[in-house]
């Protein structure tokens, strides 16, 4: 049986650009899928298809067991959408925004009012509830936006880059809210460029690039695909690079990588902290002065670079420019 969010072979072309080039997804109920990729990779378009905003040229999709293309209106009753493209009205107060969204989810006036009050309390917006949203800070606005997506406690949520542009404290707060939601059984699809965010929130990660899912798995599985640990040394003097390289080659499992200008040498290893200690002793014995030495486990950044050949945040053009 397909999951709470399911997509098969989604293709969407905007003019010359194949925004989606055969996206497949399957998110089991109650889990979080992190859709990870650079700007323009197709993350937002995928969410727009699943939230009934864009019709794909090819492929099929279902959300909460309902066919997205056949019954978009029924899907809209079962989803909440939040993030970079689902906004709040800045001239309405927080309370008015939530009541409006409640009414448009077809709650009656009384229910919408009650629900708005509950959500304002829950998201710590009660004090600001009767001020126009224009006066809210970035973090408050995101919380209001998320509250609007939760008005009917939908079983399936979509969040498009929910923490982009937030400071670390607000990001942390929002993460806690999201974790609470998921603990309550909500199925969530989350797009992000922050590998840390995917690492923390998502059960499964799908890496998207050029409109395709190029890898999927848990965070650990993806890291394992990139290879194991590495030792990274930064020597103090350039003339020590050769000696240090020699030593690392003896302890390492593969070729060393040398960055001359930063005096950084990297080698894949297996053996963990014990091996690191040996390497340090050996380098010391050869009189190599070190600025830095570390045992690095692969991060999702490394995974991303290994899979796509470029860094996650390297491409600067905004995905929003692709309609």
């Amino acid at each position, binding site marked *: 049986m397909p*999951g*709470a969010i399911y997509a098969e072979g989604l293709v969407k072309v905007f003019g010359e650009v194949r925004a989606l080039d055969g996206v497949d997804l399957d998110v089991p*109920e109650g889990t979080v899928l992190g859709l990870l990729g650079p700007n323009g990779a197709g993350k937002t378009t995928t969410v*727009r298809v699943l*939230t*009934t*905003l*864009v*019709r794909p040229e090819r492929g099929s999709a279902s959300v*909460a*067991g*309902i066919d997205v293309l056949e019954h978009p*209106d*029924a899907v*809209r*009753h*079962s*989803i909440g*959408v939040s993030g*970079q*493209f*689902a*906004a*709040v*009205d*800045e*001239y*309405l107060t927080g309370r*008015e925004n939530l009541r*409006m*969204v409640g*009414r*448009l*989810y*077809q709650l*009656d006036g009384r229910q919408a009012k009650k629900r708005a009050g509950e959500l304002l309390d829950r998201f710590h917006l009660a004090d600001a509830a009767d001020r*126009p949203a224009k006066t809210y800070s970035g973090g408050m606005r995101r919380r209001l936006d998320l509250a*609007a997506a939760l008005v*009917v406690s*939908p*079983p399936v949520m979509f969040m498009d880059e929910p923490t982009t542009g937030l400071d670390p404290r607000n990001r942390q707060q929002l993460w806690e809210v999201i974790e609470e939601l998921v603990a309550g059984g909500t*199925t969530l699809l989350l797009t992000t460029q922050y590998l840390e965010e995917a690492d923390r929130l998502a059960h499964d990660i799908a890496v998207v690039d050029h409109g395709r899912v190029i890898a999927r798995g848990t965070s650990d599985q993806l890291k394992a695909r990139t290879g194991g640990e590495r030792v990274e040394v930064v020597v103090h003097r350039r003339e020590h690079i050769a000696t240090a390289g020699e030593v690392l080659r003896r302890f390492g499992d593969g070729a060393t990588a040398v960055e001359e200008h930063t005096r950084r040498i990297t080698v894949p290893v297996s053996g963990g902290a014990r091996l690191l200690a040996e390497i340090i002793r050996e380098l010391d014995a050869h009189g190599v002065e070190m600025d830095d030495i570390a045992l690095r486990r692969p991060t999702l950044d490394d995974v991303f670079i290994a899979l796509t050949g470029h860094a996650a945040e390297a491409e600067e053009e905004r995905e929003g420019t692709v*309609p």
Partner: protein
Amino acid sequence: MTVAERTARRTPVPRRGGAVGQSVRDSLVIAWRNLIRMVRIPEVVVFALIQPIMFVVLFSYVFGGSIAVGGSTKPSLYREFLMAGIFAQTVTFATAGAGAGIADDMHKGLVDRFRSLPMARGAVLTGRTLADLVQTALTLVVLAVVAVIVGWRIHDGVLRALAGFALLLLLGYAFSWIGALIGLSVRTPEAATSGGLIWLFPLTFISNAFVPSGNMPTVLRVIAEWNPFSATVQAARELFGNLPPGYPVPGAWPMRHPVWASLLWSVLIIAVFRWLSVRKYRSATG
């Protein structure tokens, strides 16, 4: 509980009135939202008033006395003749308001929010045009007061005058649907404002609004007489009793039956532009 069960519990709880009821309710929610915005951004309403008031004063005192209507250049005659034209021009400015508002909603992502909600198709646009109708009505009230101050009077009774204002409002409502389509097409509020205004100048000037069409070159005169805008101006003038004595009524059908022509044009504009706008809205991307 499986997804399907959870969904079944919450999917479309049809409420009173079925699809039509929902459509009306959702449109009113959106209209309410837009009216709140107007109250919170009163500058917009104030600026919408300044221009027509300036037109009333400038045209009355600068042109009045130089323009002959019904064979006389008496300024008071021109002032009465002019008002229906200014009223009509004012209601067409609802186009720019609707266009800019909807473009702004697209730009800020609100249209995406609305399109992901289980609300009636078209309610976002209907709500906006209804709110604009309220604003247009308020503008007309203020303008009518200014017009009375400079000497404008109705001569055929209150009921006929109200009918005249109703036709003006209907024209304004029709034009706000044109604005809706412009707003959905251009995507930025700035472009919608200028795009919503530019074409209004030839439309309102190649008409009988400010000068009698009879003195225009033939091509312009024909355009002016068939201009939907002229029909409403002529109808309002007739219903207000503002046609000067001896004013030659042109032979074109819309000028001889201005009330019917005005109604037909407005209904036609609403039908066409509502259909086009709702269609555009359904595929809109922010």
